[in-house]
C-alpha cells in the first residue's frame, strides 16, 4: 500500500524536489512510477497506442506544475489526476467520448478504438488474466479506471473520488459494475 510514498518516506521531499524543479527527483519518480502510469493509462483508454506519448506528456506536466503538489497527501493520486486530464484531452482531440460524461444514459469510453488484439489480452500473464481480458475490454473506461485505482493502486474510495472528480457513491457504483463484469468472466470459466 502507498508503495513509493512510504518506500521513499517523505512526500514532502517529493514536493520540495518538484517545487525546485529538481531533475534528479523527477528521475527517481519516473523510475518508481513509470510502469504504474502506463498501466493506469491503458486501463483508462483501453488501448496501448498513444500511451507512451501520454506518459511523456504527464512527466513534462509534472515538471511544469510540480509546485501544485503540496506533499500533504500521497503522490500517486496527484500523478494520476495529471495523467487523467491529459487522457481526457487525448480523447477529445480524437473526438472520442469524454471520460467526463455521466454513466447514466450517455455512453462513456467503451471499447478501444484501436484495431487488433486488446492491450489486456496482450498483457495477460496468467490463465485468469486471459479470461478477464475480454471482460475488461468490454467495460467502460471509467469502470476500468475505478478498478485499477481500487484494486491495483490500493486507493481508498475518497482518494479515487478526488482523482476522478466524482462523488464517492458514483465511484463505488463503478467498482460494483466492474466487479460484476469480471466475476461473470470467472464464473463462465468455472462453468466450462
Amino acid at each position: 500500500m502507498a508503495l513509493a510514498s512510504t518506500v521513499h518516506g517523505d512526500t514532502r521531499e517529493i514536493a520540495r524536489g518538484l517545487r525546485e524543479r529538481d531533475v534528479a527527483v523527477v528521475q527517481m519518480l519516473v523510475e518508481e512510477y513509470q510502469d504504474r502510469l502506463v498501466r493506469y493509462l491503458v486501463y483508462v483508454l483501453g488501448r496501448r497506442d498513444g500511451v507512451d506519448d501520454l506518459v511523456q506528456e504527464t512527466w513534462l506536466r509534472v515538471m511544469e506544475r510540480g509546485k501544485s503538489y503540496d506533499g500533504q497527501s500521497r503522490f500517486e493520486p496527484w500523478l494520476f489526476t495529471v495523467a487523467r486530464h491529459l487522457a481526457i484531452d487525448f480523447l477529445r482531440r480524437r473526438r472520442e467520448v469524454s471520460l467526463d460524461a455521466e454513466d447514466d444514459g450517455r455512453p462513456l469510453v467503451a471499447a478501444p478504438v484501436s484495431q487488433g488484439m486488446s492491450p489486456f489480452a496482450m498483457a495477460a500473464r496468467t490463465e485468469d488474466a486471459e479470461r478477464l481480458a475480454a471482460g475488461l475490454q468490454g467495460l467502460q473506461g471509467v469502470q476500468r479506471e475505478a478498478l485499477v485505482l481500487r484494486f491495483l493502486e490500493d486507493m481508498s474510495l475518497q482518494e479515487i473520488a478526488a482523482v476522478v472528480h466524482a462523488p464517492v457513491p458514483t465511484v463505488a457504483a463503478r467498482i460494483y459494475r466492474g466487479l460484476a463484469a469480471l466475476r461473470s468472466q470467472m464464473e463462465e470459466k468455472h462453468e466450462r
Partner: protein
Amino acid sequence: MSARHEEFEQRIDRSLAGAGTPEDERLVEEHVRGCAACGEYLSASRRAVAGLKGFSFEAGLGLNAKVMAAVRARAEQMEARRRWMRLSVVALVLTVLGTVVDLSVGRWAAGFFDLRPVEVQHGLMALWIVPSFGLLVLFPVLPLLAAKRQEKGRSI
C-alpha cells in the same frame, strides 16, 4: 435469488470496494461459513480481483530514457525562461528609474553641468531610457526565438 443472498452479495461488494463497515465484514464472514452460494460469490469476486494482478504492463523499450531527455530539455527551457524573466524585471526597473530621473533630476542636473534642460533630457533618453526599454521588449522575445531555433534544429 433470495433477498438474504442479495443483501449479502451487496455487503461483499461493499467490503471489496472499500465502502463496507467492520460490521459488514463481520456479518459476511459469519454468513459465508454457512452459505455455499454466498461463499462462491465471495470466492469468485476474490479470484476476479486477484486476476487483475495477472497483467503485466511495462513501459515501452527506451521510454524512460526518452522521457528523461524530454524532462531535462524542458527543465533547461524553463530555467532559461526564468533567467530572461529576471533580466526583463531589471530592464523594467531601469526604464522606470530612468524616466523618474529624467523628470525629476534633469532640471537640477542641467543647472549643475551648465547645460540646457532639454539636452539633459535627450541625453538621458538616448543613453538610458531607450536602451533599457529596448531590453525590456527584447528579453521576453529572446527565449521564444531560441525555442523556435531549437525546434527547427530538431526537425532538420
